[in-house]
Structure formats: C-alpha cells, structure tokens
C-alpha cells in the first residue's frame, strides 16, 4: 500500500485579536491509498483544521502554517495555490458535518451537482451529465433520482441530503475523501446507513477516507487505523483493533470509557475538566491537567514512542514498555 497523504510536523497558528493561538503542534499523519484512517478527538482538538489544511481551505491571512503536507509526492504547502485548487473536487473531496447547511438553499440539487460534475469533466453534454447524476444517486440507494435532483436541500430529509453529498463527493472517483464528522447531525440509525453506503462505495472506487469524528463508537466499525488527537497533537495512533484492545494513552482510555455501550452495564464516564486554552499552552503533555497519572516529569516535552505500527505520546507508556 503506497502512501497517499503524508503530513509531517504540521504546525499551525491563528492570529487573533487576542494574540496567536497554536492550533496544531507537530502533527504527523499519513493515509495510504484506499486506507481508512479516523482522526478522533474532542471539538477544538484541531481535527477540522487539519482537514482544511489538506484542502488548502484555510484563509491565507491570519494563519501561519509550517511543516509538510505531502500528497502523492507534491507538497501542498509549497506548491502554487492553483495546483492545490485544481486537486479539489477531483483528487480530494470532502463531506461536511451538516449536509443541509452545506448544500445551497437557493439552488436545486441538480444545479449544484452539475457544478460538481463540471469540475470532474467539462466535456459532458447535458444529457450525459444528467445520466451521470442519476446513476450516482442510484448508487447511494436513492430510488427516485429525478425527484431529488429537482428538489432543494430543505425539501429533503437529513439522511437524503447526506446521501446526495456522498454521491457528489464520489462522483470524481477521488483518491482521498475527507469526511468531517459525517452524519453527526443525523439520528444514529440513519447515520449508520449512510456510513455503510459511503464505506462500500469508497471501497469499490479505491478511495481512501480520512474520517474525522469525536465518536470512537462510530469509528470502531469504520476505520482501519485510528489517530487520537488532543489539543492540536496526535497523542496516539494505532490500528483500530489494537487501539480498542489496548489503549495506551491515558486520554485514549478516558475517551473509550466515555463511550456509552449497549453491551455493558457500566455507565459512561465523562472526562473531568475541559480542553486547554490553546493560546497559552506549555511545552509538556497537554493532557496533564486532566490526567490521573500526572507527574512532575509530564511538564517536559513528550517524545512520540513508536513500535510495531503504533505510536503514543506519553512518558508513562515509555516506562511500561
């Protein structure tokens, strides 16, 4: 499996009215061709920002960014912006959290889908484009594509809108699909359905998925590998099964404990405290204030320990290993 996306040492700072906010700290992340990687963390941990950095969607002003985002050998941060832009909607596409809000309320689905297809292949005739759209919608289990194309997003259910988004996202057979908390706005059963559709289709097309979520439960069935993010850093990265069987970072454990489970009588345990203020973060482990194992040594910079396809950033792990 060759490497499709390779992010190394990504640092990102927002300039705000109240001074700089360090959003990402040395993020390393890679996604292989056709692989499904989940990026998990609480809101504000930097997941969405990472996604937008890959897409080149962050505003140039007020954002300082350093490191490397490699995509198929190209460096997204150093290539001409036009190159990054040309990749959008073709090699990389994106699915958004709230499909209703991501679809334009004053244009019909057909108009928006046509614009998406126009990016895929400019030479399509109207007839071809129509057939293309209908086929794509049938692929996401929409039985009456004509009616959906004639509708506005607010006339469709959330699940239907999400499926429309998936159809649009996969229309170009992209190499990478970034799914930013897909279906969080939907109810659980509908969410599961749409995720299955997305998973099956992407597998058929060989599309890799970077799956952003705050919900480990959803991730478990879906991802090949999980990266746990906290306060702008990746704190643990492991194959899904390994991570669930043997979570090594205290934050990952806390996160797992907070997931409600049908099969267990144990109540989910919330994580005490809250995400730290990113504008004043010290060098050491960011989780220290909420961590039960916290020790004075945790204030020193934490190196990433790697072994057998796993990595974890915790000094306690070092002593255990």
């Amino acid at each position: 499996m060759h490497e499709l996306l390779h992010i190394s040492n990504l640092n990102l700072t927002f300039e705000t009215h109240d001074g700089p906010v360090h959003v990402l700290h040395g993020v390393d992340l890679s996604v292989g061709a056709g692989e499904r990687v989940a990026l998990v963390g609480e809101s504000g941990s930097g997941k969405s920002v990472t996604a937008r950095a890959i897409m080149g969607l962050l505003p140039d002003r007020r954002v300082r960014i350093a490191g490397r985002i490699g995509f198929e050998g190209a460096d997204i941060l150093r290539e001409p912006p036009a190159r990054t832009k040309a990749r959008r909607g073709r090699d990389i596409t994106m699915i958004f959290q709230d499909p209703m809000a991501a679809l334009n309320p004053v244009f019909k689905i057909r108009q928006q889908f046509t614009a998406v297809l126009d990016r895929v292949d400019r030479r399509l005739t109207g007839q071809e484009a129509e057939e293309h759209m209908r086929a794509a919608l049938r692929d996401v289990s929409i039985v009456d594509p004509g009616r959906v194309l004639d509708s506005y997003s607010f006339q469709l259910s959330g699940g239907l809108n999400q499926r429309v988004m998936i159809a649009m996202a996969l229309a170009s057979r992209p190499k990478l699909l970034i799914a930013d908390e897909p279906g969080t706005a939907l109810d659980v059963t509908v969410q599961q359905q749409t995720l299955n559709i997305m998973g099956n289709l992407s597998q058929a097309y060989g599309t890799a998925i970077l799956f952003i979520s705050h919900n480990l439960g959803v991730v478990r069935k879906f991802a090949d590998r999980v990266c746990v993010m906290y306060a702008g850093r990746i704190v643990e990265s492991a194959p899904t099964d390994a991570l669930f069987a043997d979570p090594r970072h205290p934050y990952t454990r806390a996160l797992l404990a907070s997931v409600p489970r049908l099969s267990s009588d144990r109540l989910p345990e919330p994580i005490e405290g809250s995400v730290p203020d990113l504008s004043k973060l010290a060098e050491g482990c960011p989780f220290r204030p909420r961590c039960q194992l916290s020790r004075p040594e945790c204030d020193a910079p934490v190196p990433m320990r790697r072994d057998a396809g796993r990595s974890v950033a915790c000094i306690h792990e070092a002593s255990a290993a």
Partner: protein
Amino acid sequence: MTKFLLGRLVSGVIVIVGVSIFMFFLARVIPGDPARLALGPEASAAQVEAMRQQMGFHEPYVEQYLRFVGGAVNFDFGRSLYTDNPVSQDIAATFPATLELVIFAGLAMTLIGGAMGIASAHFKDRWPDNSARILSLLAVAMPNFVWALFLMLILSFWLGVLPLTGRLSESLAAPPAFTGLYTVDALIAGEWQVFLDALAHIVLPAVALSLPGLAQISRLTRTNMVDSYDRPFVEFARAYGFPERSIALKWALRPAIIPTLMILGMQIVALLGNAFIVETIFHWPGMAKYGVNAIVRKDLNAMVAVVMFISVFFVLINMLIDTLVSFIDPKIRLKA
C-alpha cells in the same frame, strides 16, 4: 406563490386605503377650515365661502371622504388651486420626468451599491472594502442636498463639464413624446444630440439622488455576503473547486441578495421622497417639484394627490419586488 402574492395585494390595498384616510384627515379635517387655509388670510369671506361650496367642505366628513375616494379611483383629485388644471393632468405631465430620474438613480443605486457590497465582502478588510466603506459613510452621512450642491459647485460651476439645471439645454427641443423619458424618447427618435444632452443633464441629479440608497444597499449587501461566505455551502463550493468568480457572483451571492431585494422597495420609495429635494435644487420639472410647490402653496388637492400617487407607487413596487424575491427564494415560492 399566487396565495403569497394575493396576500400582498390585499395588504397593499389596505395600506392605500389607510393613506387615503390619513391624507383626508390631514387636508380636510385638521385644518378646520381648509378653504381659508388654501386661499390665505387675504382672501375675502365671499371667496372662501364660494370655495367651500365648490369643494363641498360643508358636507359631513364621511360624505366628503366617500366623494374623495370616489374621485380618487377615477383619478379625479379635483383641480389644482394653483395651476387650475385637473391635478391628475398635472401629475401625468410631471411624472415622467420624475420617473426618468428615479430610474437612473435606482439603477445606479442598485447596480453600483450592489457591486460595491459584493466587492467589499470579497476583499473584506482590504483596500477595496475599506474604500467602499468610507464612500458609503460619506454617502449616508452627507445630506443629499449638500452632495448635490458640492457636485454642482465642482462639476458645473468650477469645471464646467456638466450642465447646471433642468432636463435639456434651452437650444434643444424635447424629443417627440413617446414614453416621456427624454433619454429614451431621443433614442427612439434617433436624435443623438438630444440624447447626449439629456443624459448630461440627468447625471448630477441622478447621482445626488442615488447616494443615500447606494450606501444602504452596499452596506446591507456586504453584511449578507460576508455572512454568506462564512456558511458551509460556500466552503462546500470551495472544497469542490468551484471557480472563485462563480462563488462570488452565484453561489454566495444568490442567497445573500434576498435581504437586499427586500429593502429595495423601501429604497426606491425613499428615492421618490428625496426627489423632493433634488428636483428643487436642479429645477427638475418633475412630480416631486410639483409636490413641493403644492405643499408650499397650500394647494391641498395637489398635495393629497401627489402623496396618494407615491403610496400607490410604493405598493406596486413592493409587489413587483415580492414577485422577484419569490422567484429567487424557493422557500417563499414553495410555501404557498
């Protein structure tokens, strides 16, 4: 949609009836003795009495009002005390000049104001935005009669590039009346020189008239465009690589333009109101100038008619705009 527009029509009629009651009250009831008010203190008692008889001022108010409404629906507002013509005839004669001015100013206001707002949002916090915001501050905060005089002073008096007042140079004859709009009529008649002259005359008053509305529209469009740019649907458009120009002029603009359209009716009517000043300054022989004269001379029939006419215009413009909005905003169109 028909239901929506029908509802708007009904409220429009109610508004017009309301305006007619108010104007009747203002012109006939409050003055106590409208005949004396109209004729002034120098008129003899016999003259005043004659007028009372002629206008039916001795009848009960309800009867007077019904007669007034009966006339109004047939465009009969009585005679002007000053020109002695039927008021509706005076209005028909002067309205085209005002309409021409309002059309030019309205187009400038909508197109330039809209373009400024779009550019402002697109280049938010950079120089096009800053200069557009300063310009719109100047445009709202400076009364348009001051603008008019400044423009006149600089462009007409000092630089002499544009004519001072009126609709047409005295050396030229008005083009054959077809629409009553000199620029349009001149084009229809192929009188090129008249067209250019009429155009040169309308520039200053139209600019002065358009500025306050232009500022409001630019500002509102900017606010809504900025809001639109922050919405997920614009991020969607970017994430799929839609060209930046089509994002600005289509995907972000269409949803943002709806609030601007909704205030457009109000702004067009405000143009009619401000025309009262601009026409006075530029000696523009339009209905607004006629209205100013009517009010100054206490020509009550003419005053009532002009105000009624404006409120009807208001209702019609708003219906037109509601129709337009319902075409652009599917939520309105599909609801009814």
